[in-house]
């Protein structure tokens, strides 16, 4: 019985993440359009796209890795979702989150890009492989400040568990973005890269690489990629909210907080041109890393 409930809860979580993530995507398209002084598509446009992609009657692949690549990506998204506390008090969305810690999350989050990279590699499309190399290079860039921020938190609260960090946050009663501001700055700057909006969209660079790693994926493959991307966005946002913004007591607060956070990379991206790979790596190893370093010093000495 408990198991059934757990599974139901997990499914509910996934559905929630899917819906929220997809809606955010649509809303972003809408906002972008408004900034461009356009009408833009409806906010549910992404759902329509996704549904259409399922409805594609044919699909091709170049081999087993391309076939299963999207599944790898999905594993990364959903498993990390399972290990992240959605709400402060758990409830329906508890899942496995008491077992999760940050190091595990960092690594399981890499699982997806690797799967995507394998799928992209198998297609034999040079654009895909180039996109992948760029993506991996950029990942080396933004992971540094991100991990520095996380390490700063771990030092400060003596735990690597997400739930542990959240509890600590509750005890102090203040959001971590205020108790450890430098870590927050570093993490947010790293987040810019994580979401791959411009100026860090070199990976998929539409006019240059023909959408990069996914350029050979259509139909169901693209659908899986897209929905896992949406879930993943939700995962990342929730994680940030959990860590830096005190988590959320109910879904509405969660949505508000994640949405507010989401606007940072989106709005920054809309008004930015695109960095080359070197530039983006150098960007991440510059100020964000510096802030990360300050955050660690702050955590050690304050």
């Amino acid at each position, binding site marked *: 019985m408990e198991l059934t409930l757990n599974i139901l809860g997990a499914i509910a979580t996934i559905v929630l993440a899917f819906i929220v993530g997809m809606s955010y995507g649509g809303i972003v*398209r809408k906002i972008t*359009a408004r900034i*461009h*002084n*356009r*009408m*833009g*598509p*409806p906010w549910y*446009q992404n759902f*329509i*796209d996704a*549904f*259409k992609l399922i*409805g*594609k*009657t*044919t*699909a*091709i692949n170049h081999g087993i890795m391309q076939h299963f690549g999207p599944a790898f990506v999905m594993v990364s998204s959903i498993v990390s979702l399972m290990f992240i506390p959605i709400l402060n008090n758990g409830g329906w969305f508890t899942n496995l989150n008491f077992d999760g810690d940050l190091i595990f999350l960092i690594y399981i989050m890499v699982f997806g890009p690797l799967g995507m990279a394998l799928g992209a590699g198998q297609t034999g499309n040079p654009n895909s492989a180039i996109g992948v190399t760029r993506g991996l290079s950029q990942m080396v860039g933004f992971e540094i400040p991100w991990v520095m921020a996380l390490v700063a938190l771990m030092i400060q609260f003596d735990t690597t568990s997400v739930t542990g960090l959240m509890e600590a946050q509750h005890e102090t009663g203040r959001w971590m973005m205020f108790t450890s501001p430098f870590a927050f700055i570093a993490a947010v700057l790293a987040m810019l890269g994580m979401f791959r909006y411009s100026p860090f969209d070199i990976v998929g660079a*539409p006019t240059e690489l*023909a*959408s990069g790693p*996914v*350029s*050979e*994926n*259509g*139909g169901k493959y*693209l659908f899986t990629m897209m929905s896992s991307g949406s879930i993943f966005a939700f995962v990342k946002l929730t994680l940030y909210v959990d860590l830096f913004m005190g988590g959320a007591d109910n879904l509405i607060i969660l949505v508000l907080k994640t949405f507010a956070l989401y606007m940072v990379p989106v709005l920054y991206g809309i008004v930015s041109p695109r960095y080359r790979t070197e530039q983006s790596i150098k960007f991440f190893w510059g100020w964000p890393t510096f802030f990360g370093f300050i955050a660690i010093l702050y955590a050690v000495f304050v």
Partner: protein
Amino acid sequence: MINDKNSQKIVDIIQNWARKHSLFVLAYGTGCGAIEIPPTMTSRYDAERFGIRGAATPRQADVLLITGYLTTKTLKRVIRVYEQMQDPKYVIGFGSCTINGGMYYDSYNTIKVLDKYLPVDVYINGCMPRPESVISGFVKLQQLIADGKGNGAKEYKENLESYRANQKKIIPNWVMPDYNW
């Protein structure tokens, strides 16, 4: 349940609705008409409000937009791109050149009637067609899809041999992989 005709119909209706509202366009800029695509997509005319969106590769695209005249040299590529697209897929012939050759009616190296080589679902008349007419063409396509009449791909598959014959007439050295479907 899938075999049940009625339910299949319902599914079709829903799917067609989705297809109609989500057109990923591969704008193959074959001729001068390509200049009309940017205004169509950007702020002034904003095709995205119809769910029309650019696609980067044929694998992801639903609509192949042939913008203008098609030289014999480009035809091969266009056929290739079309065949790489996933079903269901649609072709829009853009401008007079795709209908009857337009101002290139007597050119030795353009094809005159696109329909002989690819199953065109919607023609957009004009030389050049303005973005308004492009959008109206898309709306027409959406209607066709909603009615379940956007069957260009099916037609192409059924009449593949005649299409191939026509194509091979234009393209002398035919070194292409066979159509996968």
